[in-house]
């Protein structure tokens, strides 16, 4: 599929009923848009459906929403339990109270990759939370058949670190959204889209990808691009979670500081897991209580380690070596 292919070009003036199934984060996604993911094997009941909105229905649903025009992203909880997310000049979404439906509307011509980045990332996290899951904000790779997650906020360098692992033969499990499922005395981590959001120079350095990547949005707001990974660079199999590394914020690490990998006091580990949920927008007592309990159980079964390092791109192999040594 051409990188310049747009959703507008894909869709016909008269929408068809054809759907496409994918397995994403361990759930069956049924989409009315053909995505650039491997199709799901076999048949099954959809966990989440991704569908275009009927224009009049969408307008009626959001009629009472007061948009903040000064903000590119508007997020609103509607009284009926739906969540509304709008990326100005690109698209908007409604996520159903059950998390079973994601409805989208294009506000302009956008690339499929851009649409996927948001729909299968941040928007999908709304659906996951509504379905009762607690996704973490983490880039995750596979080391010796165990998932290793790098936990932190945006711009913490998680994806760059993951790219450094990929280049050494440790495949990516997921770049942004980490869904976990507790199974007995362990947690299973589920694969996300085989893509990394990177600065082009990081991709050149570690993925040896000299392409420009695909823009994340049409606003030039985001310096990162989306780079697709090959089958050998990514893992499509649910994998037991071996460890979580809570990444220290870049502003708290100076350039000459040494790489630090160490233990975290349990309370700090709990705070880190709570802090780096993938969705801070959906609150409410029920969700917070569930998230609190989920995080508490997680730190009991999975080691949460601290990771701090100076953000020098060329030094990431040393960081990787420190993590690998710590895992042994």
């Amino acid at each position, binding site marked *: 599929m051409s990188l310049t292919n747009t959703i507008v070009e894909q869709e016909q003036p008269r929408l068809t009923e054809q759907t496409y199934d994918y397995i994403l984060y361990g759930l069956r996604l049924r989409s009315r848009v053909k995505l650039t993911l491997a199709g799901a094997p076999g048949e099954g009941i959809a966990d989440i459906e991704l569908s275009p909105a009927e224009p009049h229905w969408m307008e009626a649903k959001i009629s009472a929403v007061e948009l903040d025009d000064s903000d590119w992203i508007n997020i609103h909880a509607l009284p009926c339990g739906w969540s509304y997310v709008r990326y100005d000049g690109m698209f908007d979404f409604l996520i159903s109270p059950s998390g079973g439906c994601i409805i989208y509307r294009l506000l302009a011509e956008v690339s499929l990759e851009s649409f996927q980045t948001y729909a299968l990332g941040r928007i999908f996290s709304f659906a996951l939370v509504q379905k009762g899951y607690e996704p973490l904000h983490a880039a995750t790779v596979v080391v010796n058949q165990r998932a290793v997650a790098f936990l932190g906020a945006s711009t913490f360098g998680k994806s760059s670190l993951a790219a450094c692992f990929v280049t050494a033969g440790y495949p990516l499990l997921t770049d942004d959204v980490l869904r976990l499922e507790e199974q007995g005395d362990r947690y299973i981590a589920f694969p996300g889209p085989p893509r990394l959001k990177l600065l082009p120079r990081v991709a050149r350095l570690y993925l040896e990808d000299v392409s420009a990547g695909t823009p994340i949005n049409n606003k030039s707001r985001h310096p990162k691009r989306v780079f697709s990974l090959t089958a050998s660079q990514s893992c499509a199999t649910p994998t037991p979670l071996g460890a979580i590394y809570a990444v220290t914020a870049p502003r708290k690490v100076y350039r000459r500081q040494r790489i630090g990998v160490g233990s975290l*006091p*349990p*309370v700090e580990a*709990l*705070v880190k897991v*709570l802090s780096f949920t993938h969705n801070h927008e959906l*609150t409410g*007592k029920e969700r*917070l*209580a569930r998230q*609190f*309990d989920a995080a*508490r159980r997680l*730190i009991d079964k999975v080691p949460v380690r601290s990771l701090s390092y100076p953000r020098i791109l060329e030094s990431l192999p040393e960081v990787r070596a420190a993590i690998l040594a710590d895992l042994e």
Partner: protein
Amino acid sequence: MPIPFSSRLAVSTDVMIRQVGDEAVLLDLKTERYLGLDDVSNRIWHVLTAGGTVQAAYDTLLGEFDVDPGRLRSDLEEFVQQLLQFGLVEQGAESKQA
């Protein structure tokens, strides 16, 4: 104004507490705020919210910790004030016993 030591304290209904080793983390579901308790404050919390009076908690803690009684009293008063201020506990009826 410090509350009378004859008072009892009850955990607010919107507060969850989860033990993490010897420490604990509180979550106030109403304000969506988290509060960490180290091992000492965790013990103080448990004694204060066990159903007895603040005086009873003081007496228990005095027996457990090697601390000046006056220092413990003032620290306990301050701790209780903070808990009340944050809405993590509610002041119950005072005990009629001395």
